[in-house]
Every structure is written in C-alpha cells, then in structure tokens.
C-alpha cells in the first residue's frame, strides 16, 4: 500500500513580537494507508503543533515551510478553500477536550447537522439523522444522545460524540490529539478498544498524539518519538519499544512502570527542554543525554536507518547500523 501522507522537512515557527519559537523542525516521515501512527513526546515537544500544521489550524503569524503530501496534494501550499474541502471530508481531528469542542447551547443533533451541511448543503434532516445514528452505534452510544445537550453527558460520552462527528464524512485520515488523555482508565480503555474495533470495518489511517507510551503500545503500529520539535526516532511500535535505539526513547520508556512485568527502578530524564527560540547547533537532546559526546553538542545527527522501517537521529546509530 502506498503512502497516504508524506511529510518532508516540515518546519513550524511561531512568531511574536520578540521571538521566533521553532516548535517543529525538519520533521520528515511518511505513513501508509491503514497505518496507525503514534506521536509521543513530553509536553512542548511539538507533537500537537505538527498536527495543527497538517490541518492548517495554527495562528496566522505562524511560519510554515516544508511539504506535506496528502493524497497527491501538498497540504501546506493549497488554498484555504481547497483546504476547507479536505477538512472533515478527508481529514478529521478529535481534540483532547471534547467538552470544549462542542457548543454548550446546542443539541448534539444541531451540531451534527451543521457540520454535515458544510459539505452537503442539501442534505435532509432524516438523512443526517440516519448517518448520525449509524455512527453513534459505532461508538457505543444510545440513540437518545442525539437529542441531548453536551452538559447532560459525561466526559466519556462527549469524547465518543466527538469521535462520531469526526467520522461523519468518511475521512481517510483521523488525527486524535490526546483524545483519551482527560478520561478515566476504564473509559479510556473502552474508547481505545472501540477505536480498534471501528478500524476493522472502516478503512482509515490514524495519527494518535499522546504523551502516554502505553496508549501507543496498545493501539498503534508505528511510532514517532518527538523531542523539542525534532523527530528522534521513528519505526514500528514492536521494534522501537522492545529495542529503542535513541537514548530519549529509552529514557521515556524507563519512566513508565510496567503493569505486570518486572519493575526496575523508575528513572527520570534530568534537565529541561531547551529554549526553542534559540538555534541549537548539535543534537537537541544532548544536554540531557547520558551518552552525549563532544560531537553531539557540535553537529546535528542525521536520521539514520536502524532497521527495516526504523530510523533514529542519534550519532550512536550512525556507522553502526546493526544497532549497539
């Protein structure tokens, strides 16, 4: 299967009066149809910015360079009108706080109708309702939800409604931006399971943005690890999580306790994110890395192939393609 989304050299810079913050730098990756990509990293690592850039939902002052080929079109250079055509139809996003994404003064039905009619202005109420019922069933909600107001529902239900809305127009690419983070363990588990179940019938590609490695481990097949706006490691989940090549991935993994297996002492990564408004000559992770050498601080490591589908940006992997 061919690539559905290819991102090349994506740079996103937030500009305000006093400084330029390079929130995403030189991000390149591609995902195939039917893939589920998890983007993990700490807060401030640029994972949400990356997604917002793909949907062109960033503030006007933002500077974006690079290329994001989706379905043969460059998402970053097409006109706003063309982009609007793609939103909801081909690309859909679910945000962390569905409670804030829905209007509190309208019934779910009104909001679904609004969104449906943006792309099919002539659709009748019954037609929309039929589609909505189908989707509500898909996310395990009773039909009565259609007539409710957001405040009458719990967070988990709202999140399900948001997922249902994102599916209205059969999008090809779904982006979940921390969509289950604010939920309870049980609800999160249920929704993740429903998403997996749903994908068996729908042919969608999914990008899952989260800080929780365990969510990626259970629901994705590919993973991209981001740090300070740069891609640190990319590859198949099973490969990356069993044998992380990049010290940052290793560090992230060490800070998660295992549920049932052996539990060595949890380790944290000392230090802080670098100031993204300054240009960093070497590896962005070098100041916090235990393996950093002089070279790491001076030169930026290139993305190096580490396995069949895996890449990592670390000098440790260069010249030693077979791993450590």
């Amino acid at each position, binding site marked *: 299967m061919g690539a559905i989304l290819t991102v090349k050299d994506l740079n996103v810079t937030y500009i305000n009066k006093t400084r330029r913050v390079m929130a995403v730098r030189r991000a390149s990756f591609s995902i195939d149809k039917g893939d589920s990509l998890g983007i993990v990293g700490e807060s401030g690592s640029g994972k949400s910015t990356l997604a917002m850039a793909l949907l062109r939902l960033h503030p006007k002052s933002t500077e974006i360079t690079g290329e994001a080929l989706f379905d043969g079109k460059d998402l970053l250079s097409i006109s706003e009108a063309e982009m609007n055509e793609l939103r909801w139809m081909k690309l859909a996003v679910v945000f962390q706080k569905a409670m804030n994404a829905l209007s509190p003064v309208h019934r779910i039905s009104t909001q679904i109708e609004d969104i449906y009619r943006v792309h099919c202005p002539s659709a009748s109420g019954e037609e929309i309702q039929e589609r909505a019922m189908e989707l509500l069933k898909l996310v395990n909600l009773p039909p009565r939800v259609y007539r409710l107001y957001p405040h009458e529902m719990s967070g988990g239900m709202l999140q399900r409604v948001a997922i249902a809305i994102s599916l209205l127009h059969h999008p090809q690419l779904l982006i979940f931006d921390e969509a289950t983070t604010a939920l309870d363990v049980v609800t999160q588990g249920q929704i993740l399971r429903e998403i997996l179940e749903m994908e068996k019938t729908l042919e969608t590609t999914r990008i899952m943005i989260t800080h929780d*490695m365990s969510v990626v481990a259970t629901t994705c097949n590919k993973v991209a690890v981001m740090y300070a706006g740069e891609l640190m490691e990319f590859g198949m989940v099973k490969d990356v999580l069993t044998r992380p090549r990049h010290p940052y991935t290793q560090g992230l993994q060490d800070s998660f306790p295992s549920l049932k297996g052996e539990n060595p002492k949890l380790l944290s990564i000392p230090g802080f994110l670098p100031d993204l408004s300054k240009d960093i000559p070497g590896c962005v992770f070098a100041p916090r890395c235990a393996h950093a050498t002089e070279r790491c601080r001076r030169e930026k490591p290139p993305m190096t192939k580490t396995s069949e589908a895996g890449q990592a940006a670390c000098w440790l992997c260069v010249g030693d393609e077979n791993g450590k």
Partner: protein
Amino acid sequence: MENKTEFIKIQDIQKFYPYKDGKIFHKRGEERKFVKAVDGVSLTIERGEILGVIGESGCGKSTLGRILVRLEAPTSGDVFLDGVSTERILRQDPKQFRRNVQIIFQNPFDTFTPRDTIQKILLRPLKHHNIGRDTAERVEMCKTALEAGGLRPAEDILSRYPHELSGGQLQRISIIRSMFLKPGFIIADEPVSMLDVSVRAEIINMLIDLARNQNAAVVFISHDIALTRYISDRIAVMYLGRIVEYGTADEVIQNPQHPYTRALISNCASIDPFEEREELSIGGEPPTPVNPGPGCYFAPRCYMATEACFKSYPQRRDLSGCHYAVCSRIEK
C-alpha cells in the same frame, strides 16, 4: 486486638453529602437522599508503608484522602493515629495534628500563593511550627532541602515566584514543604497526574524515599494502575465509596479476584506491546452513589453478576495473606 505495628487505623469511615434534589422544604418523615461518597472504609497502615488507592473518578478516593487529613469531617467513623483518635488530637492539639499529617495535591500550580516567593512559602510552615532558631537558619534549612531534592541552584529557586517554575519543580517543592515538618502520615492525591512523564519518576522516587527514610505512612491516591503498583506495598481498590479488593500490590495486580479489579486492569494500557491481556469490558460509567444498593454496588455493571448479587451486599472473602475481595462470586 491492639497491634503494635498498626500505625494508622481507619475505622469504618463514612462521608455522606445531602443530595440536592431541588426541594427546599421536605415533608416530615420524607426520606432524604444522600450521595455516599465514602461508605464504610476500614484500613490499617503501618509505618513506612505505602498504600495505593485506585479506582475510577467518582469512586471516593479523593474524598477519603481529604477525610484523612481532616479537610472534611467524616459523617461517621474515625481515624486513629498510633491508637489515638484524630478527632481527639484535633480538639486538644490541632497544631500537632497538622504537623503530623500532610497532604500533597494534584495540581502544583494551585498549591502555592502566586504572590509569594518560594522562600516565603517555604518559611511559613517552619515559622508556624517554631522550627529553627531564626530566619537565617530557616533559610539555610530550605536551601539544604531544595538541594537534596535536586533543585539547584537553591538560592535562585528561593527568590522565584511559583509561576516561574515548572510543574515538576513545584511538585517537588510541595513535597519538600510537607517533609520539613517530618510528618508521620502523608496523603498524596494524584501527585503526578499533571506532570510530564520524564519528571514523574523523580517525584515517585522521592515519595518512596520519604516513606522508607522517615518511616512515614503514605497513602498514594491515583488512577494510574501501573504507577500505583510500582510505588505501593499494598493496594486498595475502591468502587462507589467502598473497598472491593485489598492486598499486597503484586497480588492485587497479578492475581486480581474481584471482577471490578480485573476489568480495571484489563482496561489499563500497558507499555509492553506483546503483553497478553484479558479482554474484559464493563459497560457504562460508574453511577452516582445516591443511595446505591441494596445489592453489590458493582452488580449492575458486572459481567459475572447473578440474581443473588442484587439482593444483598456481599461479604468480605479472605484470600491468602492480607488479600481480600468483597464479592460473592469468589469461591472458597
């Protein structure tokens, strides 16, 4: 009956909030409804032990924490510290109680006065409890504590305001502040859920050290099961204000008996992509605990429930060691 190692004894704590049904006046004899946030919790905690409390949101775990530090008075029941009723300690010597029992809150950004510097914030409890001779000595104490907690340079941190520090740093200061008083009993209410993964480990390890070195009892309230298993010696699983399972951390997680615990664990995402998981799902969300019962509170959502489960609340079944579960479907 009196056990020497028994440091904290929680005896049948109940906390009911009157249910707001919109009526101002009630007929005489009309039964008032209550939200039973905590409904008869009994536990014991030893010195140096970390007890993890897990459950869904709304199961009463935070209310339990607030009762333990007496931010709220229980409707009935009592907590005994070294065999003395906290109610009595509070009446006779509230200062001593506050010194001995500390709480760490979830959101470090809300725990500090935004208008004061860290130095002022840290000095306040020291002054209040007369620790240290003068300000100079107290500042010195703050510096040593901050440096021991990995916050360097301490002088710089002391002169800052809370908004100038990161969540991880603030949470560490919050723990340091409560450690100053050498408390015997600490309640940590979701202390790391607001923090980034890379700094979580530090806070957790700090709490473990605190329990081990100062021989303090720690109640760790969290919804993160993997983390709770890592930090705790024992785990109590709560559902709608009651404890449904209790035991050593490994036993509860590796050999869960109560259907709720099993569902909770099976829903927990694991970091290991190859881990085999039991596929258990429980429908819906926890109901509000307004006059639940008479049967097992979990029965309406339980995949193992029989008719008997709806009739009366099950008895506690003791399993091996201290492990017990409250379910009528468990054999033996």
